[in-house]
């Protein structure tokens, strides 16, 4: 799985510019992070990677990179 690609999809899901995110971004500290973003990321992981995430996966991940690893572990 390509990290740039993941960052781009993550950014699109939560409606921010991909350039503002990196693997070490603590995404829940972003301004305006809310429960709808959690849903948007779960929907993105399902649609783009066929990976099922739960709310606690997102709760327990701090950075974009950590979440990427969870998604990777859930793929096919």
């Amino acid at each position, binding site marked *: 799985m390509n990290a740039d690609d993941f960052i781009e999809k993550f950014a699109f899901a939560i409606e921010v510019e991909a350039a503002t995110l990196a693997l070490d971004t603590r995404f829940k500290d972003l301004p305006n992070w809310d429960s709808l973003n959690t849903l*948007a990321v779960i*929907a993105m992981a399902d649609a783009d990677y066929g990976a099922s995430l739960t*709310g606690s996966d997102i709760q327990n991940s701090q950075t974009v990179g950590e979440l990427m690893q969870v998604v990777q572990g859930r793929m096919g």
Partner: protein
Amino acid sequence: MSIDSSAYTRPDIFADEIERLFAGRMYLCSVHELPEVDSYLAIHLGGASITVRHTTEGLRAFDNVCLHRCALIDPEGCGKRPFRCRYHAWSYAADGALHAAPLVEVDDLARRALQTYPLTVVGEHVFIGLSGQAPAVDKMAYAMSEAGIPLTNPEPFHRGELLQQCNWKLLVENNIESYHLSFVHAQSFIPAGFVSKSDYAWEHDAYTCWSHCEPTEATSKTARLQRLSRQSRHEFGHIFVFPNLFLTATNQMVGFRSYVLPLTPDRTLFKWELFELPALLALPTPVREQIRAESIRFTEASLQEDKPMVEACQLGLSSRHAFIQLRAPDARIQRFHDYYAEQMRHAEK
């Protein structure tokens, strides 16, 4: 005119309400609570003990008092068991007739059938007519379509109940006003975008009323919700079917059905079911699971936030100087009081 404060505490008024006002139409349960033959739901309210059963001939309601020595046939609550008294095993048929009584000649008995009550089922909603007449529920379908809730929905994904130390009318009133949202619901409605000042519109029919609450344009999340589902909107729809049923639709995703069962003047059982609306059913499984989990959290938080308020009102209403003053934000409560007064008067004739 509003309901007199003593109507929240006086046992004689409570008895009248059960006998007159709840007698015409009372919501009892959803069909999901009685899934198979021999499922039952038994309640005791005011002077009435009733059991609703899923019989081989469909749903039927009976007096839940044994013809032998008056034990409750089904224990209070829900479950599945044969239609047979637990005490000396007198058993009953699908129409309430005494079927068998061990060591006793049934034909010698003066009373050989349980009293039955008519039920009306609208979609999945079961109403009882304790007066003996089938309850009128013809206005319900329209109110439900106004709120975007189908008449029939899938099996609920969550249920719960809460015993509240207050009169049933306080729960109705709390349910049909949005005035308190900003002051009470820090963990539920406020973060969900619904506050006292949200755009709130309501309408009513003979015995239903329904409302729409929408965040102001600046705070609306409709555009973001629609990226998840085109059918979703950031809104809270609410229906009240007099006297005891509420249905809500949150963002056109989650349906919530709740109802109150008056046990005594100051004790009320509040029960609820959460179910998925069509927009949610169409979403991918992990998204549905997250929305369901979030809605359970939301529901439990908001009910826990309301509970101390309605119970505080009960105590206040039983004090010597209780006096109610409904103002403009209480308009929907005023409508409830008018309808209540009408029904109590009408029943007096």
